[in-house]
């Protein structure tokens, strides 16, 4: 609990690094909300699946943690699509609360299934990237955080590119902005929902592989990261892609600066405080001008 400049700088650096990953985690959620107006409470648990998958690929098969992206991303894509088909699609027209309850149910299932299968142990991996640090003045940045940060930015840019320049991307955005109008342009809206859910989940595959080398896995890891994703998404404006990225960085900074200057886990109160204030006073998020 010191307020010296090096401590602050260190916190800013770490905050930005983890903020990039928060952004990537949240972008999937904001995409799903933006397109079909469903809040996926199982989002954090999807990430947990990705983390366990990456963990076992690294520990059981000796695959390089960053190469697991090639597996975690498509697997999460299909996990998303599968769950969408079985459970979300049938209730797309139901009241929003039923959808929330359903995804809460899915999150309970996944969380406790993980508990049953893998026990409550907190797992982490040591890789050949672990322990490599870089010093910038007094600030220490680990290689794994650095890779996660730039990896997240790359993945975000790639997704942004897809949404902006491809027909599929335009379908998804069109369906998000006005599903009826999209239908009237010949867009199969349900198919774009399916794609958006798949892509939103696939982001978590990337995030999981990037996180694993410096984070941990446990059945409840998704509980906290899922909530963080909600905070980021609300901060950025629900459905706002760019907002989610900025929001991710801000929450990363809040968490890490808060931890540097506040005792214990009190910084979490700050994070949730921001969340609550935004929900009340600026539900449209930091970037949007219009009312949500």
């Amino acid at each position, binding site marked *: 609990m010191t307020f010296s400049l090096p401590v602050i700088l260190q916190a800013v650096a770490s905050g930005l690094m983890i903020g990039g990953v928060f952004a990537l985690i949240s972008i999937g959620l904001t995409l799903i909300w933006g397109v079909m107006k469903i809040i996926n409470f199982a989002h954090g648990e999807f990430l947990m699946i990705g983390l366990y998958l990456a963990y076992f690929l690294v520990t059981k098969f000796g695959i390089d943690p960053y190469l697991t992206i090639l597996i975690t991303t498509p697997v999460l894509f299909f996990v998303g699509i599968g769950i969408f088909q079985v459970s979300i699609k049938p*209730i797309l027209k139901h009241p929003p609360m039923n959808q929330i309850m359903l995804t809460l149910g899915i999150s309970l299932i996944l969380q406790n*299934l993980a*508990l049953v299968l893998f026990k409550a142990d907190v797992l982490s991996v040591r890789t050949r990237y672990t322990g490599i640090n870089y010093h910038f003045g007094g600030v220490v940045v680990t290689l794994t955080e650095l890779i996660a940060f730039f990896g997240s930015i790359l993945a975000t840019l790639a997704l942004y590119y897809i949404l902006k320049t491809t027909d599929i991307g335009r379908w998804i955005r069109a369906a998000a902005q006005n599903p009826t109008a999209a239908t009237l342009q010949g867009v199969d809206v349900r198919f774009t929902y399916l794609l958006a859910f798949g892509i939103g989940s696939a982001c978590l595959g990337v995030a999981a592989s990037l996180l694993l080398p410096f984070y941990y896995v446990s059945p409840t890891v998704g509980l906290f990261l899922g909530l963080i994703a909600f905070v980021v998404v609300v901060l950025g404006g629900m459905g706002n892609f760019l907002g989610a990225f900025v929001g991710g960085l801000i929450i990363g900074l809040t968490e890490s600066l808060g931890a540097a200057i506040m005792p214990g886990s009190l910084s979490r109160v700050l994070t949730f405080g921001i*969340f*609550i204030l935004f929900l009340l006073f600026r*539900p449209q998020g930091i970037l949007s001008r219009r009312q949500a």
Partner: protein
Amino acid sequence: MKQMKQYREFLVPLVVFALAAFLPLFLKTYYMHIAILILIWAYLATSWNILGGYAGQHSLGHGLYMGIGAYASTYLALEFGLTPWVGIFVGMAFAAIAGWFVGYAAFRYGLKGAYFALVTIALTEAAVYVVSNWKAMGGAAGLEVKYLGTDPFMMQFDSKLPYFYIILFMTLLAVLTAQWLNRRRFGYRLIAVRENEEAAEAMGVNTLGTKINANVLSAVMTAAGGTFFAQYFTYVGPRVVFGEVVSVQILLFAIIGGLGTVWGPLVGAVILVPVAEIARAELGTQFQGAHLLLYGGVLVFTMLFMPNGIVGLAKSIRARFGKTPDDTMSVSASEGGAS
């Protein structure tokens, strides 16, 4: 005669609970424990149901009020020796204040549906971290109720029997409250707000005030449940009484049993709690979380196949031979194809 008619609606709950009062004659200690658990969750779900079921505002943060009730009475007992019989009312008062502020803030700014759910979940999660860092409240370790053996004055008993009757009585009161709402102006206004806020407002219902009052009533009742919870388990911890998982459990039984119905929460708890408890007892050592797995599965099943819960399903089966309302079609519906 007229008086009689007015109170006849309370007859069924009174008879049901009077019969339930004989249960201890037939139950072994372990089953008494399960009966108490059923009643705790039925009580909490009934309290939640007033806001979530009747008024249609789905709070995902009722752990906040449960925690306030649990912590207030426990802290006052530990620190000042205050009897929980009084502490329970202090907790309820604090919950009323919290409920008013939460209700005012959320509803004044027009939070609905998903946004209301998110803000309530954020509040209760924030409470977890506040309490975890609050030394006087025992921090992350929580507070233990000092064991005194049987001390009725301090709401402590060696036997399960008194606990059973206390929570039975509380649940009876909660069910009577729900039953009372069913046929009173305030209750009708809650339903009007749930069904169509705009129309309710146009018909003279102060929707903001109604929702805030519902939140306060629901919070106060939930807090009392928190005090009992603390006394029964003789322990309170931040994650145990606050937090997302508890909040979800509180509303689970109302949703599965039947939202906005008098008996739904109780039916939900009676059916689910024993199964979950047996699962926990039988499988708990190998499979932690087996009961939550079950809850999750039932929740998903309910949403997919009987979104109106068990009581709702029973009602519609009964109505099936009359008329089935078909899905309304709407141009504004997101996509074209017939579903």
